[in-house]
């Protein structure tokens, strides 16, 4: 192979040397700036082998073969220019920048498209929108940038996995995460969280290495990815080298992080004592009938028992300050890019160090990125893209795991009167010491400072994504491309408790350590043949056919040991006994596909496109294995019609329509066939059938229709409006079955769900002058989700506080119905809501949560009525400022934290108390939503609609201020460009909630996880 390429190359060279009659010289410059254009191609029309390039200063010399008359000057980003030589020996040329080529070309499925000629729904986010935002992975910087994308963080720990929903949730059991394609290769994506870290699969990419992101939203855009495209596709394009001078770029920034919101304010020490006093006074007088001195003595005694006065031998702290910190993040990057017309490269390396706001936790990354491409000759180009990263992360369990989640510990049970240290500086461990009258013989109530210091929760990840490719220009208009992708992830997890940890003896020995390995690898090979041709000058046709094969394997192993000989070295060698099962497993999934597409347009006025993909998946039985996915789309550039030519204020007007089918594969890889599981029975082997199988299983089918209008007016005002309907059929649902079959549920394709929505994107260039530009934009999305069919008529599936029911949203709340506070007695009230024989509900008011039934809470869902972003960018000469607001409204969030923090005195004696409790009922006539404080009333402990709150917010999501030092200064120190900047995210939020409005999951559930953080960073970027 190599030999053939070399021969071809040498042949080409020798032909160039041999010819030559007339000599022409000249200079190629940019029409606008007059800067020289280096490495521009200078070709002789009709003489394929006679050609050259301009040098660093834009100068060229070429020998014109006998009989030649025309020179062709071309360069990426410029319009090609032909010049007739006419016996001149000096020809200088000014090339006109091609705006369409520079700005409007973007990456789409298996190729690129030009904005005005594309009929699908795709959003493009360029590097400059995200490059300075201080985030670990680019996904976190997407919120608000473009309509149709909803992003929820699952944790405020750095590197955490965000939930991304493109045009709503379309699936129940098959996952709702989009497919990620990096430089044409489907990457391993989704949630790589382990038991002690929450981890996004995209952490491995340094956001600065990204050139652009395209989000494919409708079937026309995405269905070429077939059986994995139903949740949308995110195409990531990494930075490539540009021909020209070799560019060095160094960037460094330093950031400070803290929680972005004053989450769940607690009652102060004095308020807490007062609230306890009030609770016991109510109890003593109302329940026990005490009064006068007897009551006073009783209350004093109870308060001292349950909220004991501080004692001099202990050290008390502000727990939030003790467990959390202002975290420092550092980021250093160096990139080199350059090349000539034949060879281009981009190399970069970065080091990113993030402290978590939670003390002791962190995320560090070392990454390298390399993109290399070389044109072997006129016909053949080769290249490789390579991303490598090593990340090291320490996190903790999220949610209600009180002793492992410091955030929740600080929120729920660490009151002002819990000591942190003994006088000698050692950790106070009296939680279980019986010092206090109540039963705290429970591992949930240990000193989290000690737990933090004695817990091992690290996860190290190495990832290599490698993408060699080869492209051949076979004949004019016919191109073949083949690309291989290898994506390998190796995760090494350590989880352990030192002997002093609350759980240090949970498994019987002195301390415990477990190691887990996860190896994910994916091999992809895809080859396409592209043909494009213009017929009779008005008919533009392009077509593509190709195939793709993909194999992914997921390997996991686990071993746990207990009894540490020493805690000085944390290694499995230091532990004595294997504890529990030692396991490993290796799963494989394969996909084989045929792909094709055709695009046609007439006079760039009427556009038509169709795609077709046939996928075969190893996750389905042989009879259901192959599926067909397709789309058709069309657009009409109305402005190009003759009758529109006179409307001068209208720059562009287009109508786009698309329809198509994409799919979602089961997340279970082998559900279609029966298996025996293994387990030791005593010292004998055993096999048993543990899970159901369904040979009829097939993919979810997602039919999506998109209709859109786009326009640009007065050369400064542009907008687009998209209407869409996404109907998911054959939902992969784990539907109930009678246990008499041996199983209680099994996965099948029943039910359907619909998302309908509108997306509006408006952008205005308010000021456009050489020195000042000011742009503003707003985008808005309204999505309505409905379950249109369940596995059988009348089926209701309950998932936590949600109900899945025909006619309602996927995020419909289902819980007890709170009836407020009785103004006379201050007692909590619920509606009983048990179903009467006539089908109505008993609306009797009851005072105990246990007497109230759960009910579908009409009108309250986790779905926003609308969400989107507002952007503005301002530039004055070298100074630029950009801001992004995001907003969401009309949804309800479910605050699970209330069950511990707002329990109205019920169990508050060993809990922190929320500041919300200051609004409690105190005397007859008080109108409030917080009941009287009364020990034993565990009203707040039980889930009810009291925990549902309007989640509306608007937030300054990010802001960047950047200044380029004047060129005449930088030239003096031999620097091409120096930019200093400050950037921040989650700057402030306006909301009625008393916790971060972006704390909730995509369904609206607030599960006590670490809240989002605000990072402000300062940086400098040098180019030379």
């Amino acid at each position, binding site marked *: 192979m190599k030999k053939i390429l070399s021969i071809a190359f040498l042949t080409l060279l020798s032909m160039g040397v041999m010819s030559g009659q007339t000599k022409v010289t000249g200079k190629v410059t940019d029409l606008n700036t007059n800067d020289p254009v280096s490495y521009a191609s200078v070709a002789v029309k009709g003489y394929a082998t006679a050609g050259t390039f301009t040098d660093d200063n834009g100068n060229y010399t070429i020998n014109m073969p006998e009989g030649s008359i025309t020179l062709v000057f071309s360069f990426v980003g410029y319009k090609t220019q032909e010049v007739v030589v006419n016996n001149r020996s000096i020809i200088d040329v000014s090339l006109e920048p091609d705006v369409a080529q520079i700005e409007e070309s973007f990456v789409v499925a298996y190729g690129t498209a030009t904005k005005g000629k594309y009929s699908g729904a795709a959003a493009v986010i360029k590097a400059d929108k995200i490059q300075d935002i201080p985030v670990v992975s680019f996904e976190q910087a997407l919120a608000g940038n473009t309509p149709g994308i909803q992003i929820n963080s699952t944790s405020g720990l750095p590197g955490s996995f965000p939930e991304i929903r493109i045009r709503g949730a379309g699936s129940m059991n098959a996952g709702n995460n989009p497919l990620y394609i990096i430089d044409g290769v489907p990457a391993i994506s989704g949630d790589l969280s382990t038991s002690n870290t929450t981890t996004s699969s995209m952490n491995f990419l340094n956001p600065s290495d990204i050139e652009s992101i395209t989000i494919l939203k409708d079937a026309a855009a995405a269905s070429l990815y077939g059986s994995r495209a139903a949740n949308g596709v995110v195409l990531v394009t990494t930075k490539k080298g540009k021909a020209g001078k070799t560019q060095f770029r160094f960037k460094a920034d330093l950031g400070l992080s803290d929680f972005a919101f004053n989450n769940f304010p607690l009652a102060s020490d004095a308020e807490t004592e007062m609230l306890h006093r009030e609770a016991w006074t109510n109890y003593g007088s109302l329940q026990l009938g005490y009064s006068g001195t007897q009551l006073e003595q009783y209350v004093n005694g109870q308060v001292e028992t349950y909220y004991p006065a501080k004692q001099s031998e202990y050290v008390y702290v502000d727990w939030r300050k003790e467990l959390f910190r202002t975290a420092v993040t550092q980021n250093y990057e160096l990139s080199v890019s350059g090349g000539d017309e034949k060879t281009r490269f981009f190399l970069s390396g970065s080091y990113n160090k993030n402290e978590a706001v939670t003390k002791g936790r962190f995320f560090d990354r070392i990454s390298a990125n390399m993109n290399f491409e070389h044109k072997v000759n006129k016909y053949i180009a080769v290249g490789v893209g390579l991303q490598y990263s090593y990340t090291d992360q320490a996190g903790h369990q999220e949610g209600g795991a009180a002793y492992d989640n410091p955030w929740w510990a600080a929120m729920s049970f660490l009151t002002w009167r819990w000591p942190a240290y003994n006088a000698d500086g050692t950790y106070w461990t009296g939680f279980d010491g019986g010092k206090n009258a109540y039963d705290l013989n429970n591992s949930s109530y240990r000193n989290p400072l000690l737990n933090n210091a004695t817990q091992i929760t690290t996860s190290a990840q190495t990832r290599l994504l490698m993408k060699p490719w080869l492209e051949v220009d076979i004949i004019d208009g016919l191109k073949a491309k083949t690309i291989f992708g290898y994506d390998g992830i190796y995760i090494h997890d350590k989880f352990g408790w030192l002997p002093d940890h609350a759980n240090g003896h949970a498994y*019987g020995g002195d301390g415990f350590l477990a190691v887990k390995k996860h190896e994910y690898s994916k091999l992809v090979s895809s080859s396409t043949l592209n043909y494009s041709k213009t017929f009779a000058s008005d008919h533009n046709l392009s077509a593509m056919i190709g195939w793709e094969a993909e194999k992914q394997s997921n390997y996991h192993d686990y071993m746990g040991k207990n009894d540490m000989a020493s805690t000085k070295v944390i290694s499995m060698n230091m532990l004595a006994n294997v504890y529990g099962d030692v396991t490993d497993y290796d799963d494989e999934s394969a996909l084989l596909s045929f792909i094709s597409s055709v695009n046609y347009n007439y006079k760039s006025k009427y556009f038509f496109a169709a795609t077709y993909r046939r996928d075969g998946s190893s996750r389905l039985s042989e009879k259901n294995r192959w599926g067909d996915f397709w789309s058709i789309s069309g657009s009409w550039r109305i402005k190009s019609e003759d009758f529109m030519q006179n409307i001068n204020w209208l720059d562009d007007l287009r109508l786009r329509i698309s329809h198509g089918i994409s799919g979602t594969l089961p997340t279970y890889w082998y559900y279609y066939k029966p298996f025996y599981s293994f387990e030791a029975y005593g010292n004998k082997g055993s096999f048993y059938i543990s899970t*159901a199988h369904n040979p009829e299983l097939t993919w979810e089918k997602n039919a999506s229709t998109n209709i859109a209008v786009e326009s640009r007016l007065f050369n400064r005002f542009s907008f687009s409006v998209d209407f869409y309907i996404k109907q998911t059929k054959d939902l992969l649902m784990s539907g109930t079955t*009678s*246990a008499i079959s041996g199983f209680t549920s099994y996965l099948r394709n029943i039910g359907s769900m619909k998302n309908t929505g509108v997306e509006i994107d408006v952008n205005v260039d308010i000021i456009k002058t050489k020195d000042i530009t000011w742009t503003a934009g707003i985008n808005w999305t309204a999505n309505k989700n409905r379950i249109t069919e369940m596995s059988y008529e009348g089926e209701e599936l309950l998932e936590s506080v949600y109900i899945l029911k025909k006619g309602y949203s996927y995020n419909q709340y289902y819980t007890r119905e709170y009836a407020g506070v009785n103004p006379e007695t201050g007692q909590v009230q619920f509606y009983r809501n048990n179903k009467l024989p006539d089908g109505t509900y008993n609306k009797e008011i009851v005072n105990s949560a246990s007497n109230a039934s759960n009910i579908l809470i009409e009108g309250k869902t986790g779905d926003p009525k609308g969400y989107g972003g507002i952007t503005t960018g301002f530039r004055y000469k070298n100074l630029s400022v950009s801001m992004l607001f995001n907003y969401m409204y009309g949804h309800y969030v479910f605050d699970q934290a209330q069950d511990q923090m707002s329990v109205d005195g019920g169990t508050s004696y060993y809990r922190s108390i929320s500041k919300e409790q200051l609004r409690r009922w105190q005397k007859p006539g008080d109108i409030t939503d917080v009941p009287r404080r009364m020990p034993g009333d565990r009203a707040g402990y039980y889930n009810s609609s009291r925990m549902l709150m309007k989640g509306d917010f608007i937030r300054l999501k990010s802001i960047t201020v950047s200044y380029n030092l004047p060129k005449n200064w930088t030239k003096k120190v031999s620097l091409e460009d120096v930019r200093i900047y400050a950037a921040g995210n989650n700057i402030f939020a306006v909301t009625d909630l008393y916790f971060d409005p972006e704390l909730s999951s995509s369904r609206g559930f607030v599960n006590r996880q670490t809240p989002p953080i605000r990072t402000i960073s300062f940086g400098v970027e040098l180019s030379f």
Partner: protein
Amino acid sequence: MKKYNTITVMTLLAIALMFTSCSDFLNTNPTDRLPSDQVETLDDAEKIVNGFYINMKWNDYYGTPLMLLGETRGDDLRPRRETGGYAQIYNYEFTPSLNSYSGIWSTAYNVIMNTNVFLNIWDDIPATSVDETAKKDDLKGQALTVRAFCHFDIARVYGYPYQKDSGASLGAVKGNRIINLGEQVERSPVKETYEFIIQDLTEALPLLSKDKNHGNFNYWGAKGLLARVYLYMGDYDNAFKHANEILTDADNPYTLISNAAYADSWGKPDSPETMLELLTSAFSHIDDNGGVDSWYYVLWHGEGFSAGNLIPTDAWLAILDEDPDDVRHSLTIQRTEGGVTFRWLAKFPGNNGDGDFKINNPMIMRLSEIYLIAAEAALMKSSPDQSKADDYLHKIRERANPSTAQITATVDDVLKERRKEFIGEGHRYFDLGRLGLTVNRDTPDNKLPASSEYKVVDPWNMQGNQFQVILPLSNYERSSNKAAFQNPGYPD
């Protein structure tokens, strides 16, 4: 032309790549499970049969809830705290909404499904020699016995006691074949369920091995189960017949544990009298949580938040204390916690006898039970045999205290002996239920709320809310199998 050569190579390369992906490309398998079509040999078949017992020991079945239901609803054990899951079961707070006890239904049917899948492929299992044929027969016998055993549990947990209405009320859905996913089948009456159980056991007996095998059903286990089933039905003639045949058969490999060995025998598996226990180990716990969700943690007398939540009632301790020299005193322990002194049951110190309660083999059947079945049935059968009853009861009493004098046995004596002998083994409530005896908890130490309707529970004549003496089918089960009706009294 060179360029065409290059292109040709490229094209050939692309085509070659396509053909490397043959049809096998899309057939993948995991490494932690065995595709069912690869189960072929007699050896594989034996492992499938072992697999039945895996789910029986699980913490949805014998590992916790079946034991809980057998003990906590009775009068021998009580919760130490007034709150928590054990108080609920003590107070008969069962609802059709999903709770941990609905797992008995689903887990028992999972085992039944495994037996039916096995019985379906049994014919195809290769066996050439006499030994192999005997082994193959034994495996079928085990499958039938396990299937019967699970049906028996379904009938006694979800159906009324047989003797209440001669088995007329609803019992189990008969799993006499593979029931398809989504299929709806009605419940058979308790009587039909018992007939099916007896039919399976009768078919199994001649197939089963007579070798001692403490982790699997054998001939003796199946015969003992048959005796137990007849006892529940009140067919004392047959109950006596089978129990007596075991006790008088010269091939019977079991002997009672001696008085001297009794205390220590609980700390190790495979005692001389163990007919069936479900095997656990450090690598095969009762639960997915290292063993802490097991019945033995509920009883465990060590420190810990939820350990030791059930302790013997004063009433039970009083009958134990009637004889201060009873060896079974060694199975209780006194400990003070939070200033209060309790007497705990310390019967299950773990398979290694080292106090690791997390590894404990659930006891299903032992020879002592056969003696007491025989004694009870001897008194009740159509032609009572007082001397056999006296002899058999005395065997157990004498083992507990060798200096005890033989007494003239009554049914009450036998039942009292069962209380002392089987505490913690899940028998008491079912004993009361099968005979229609009241659960009497009107003792000073009871932990029931003062207003409770369950101070005196009559399992046959339910008053008020006392329909909760048997468990409801879960809503989940009801909604997916409309042919199987709910038990009376429960909301439907």
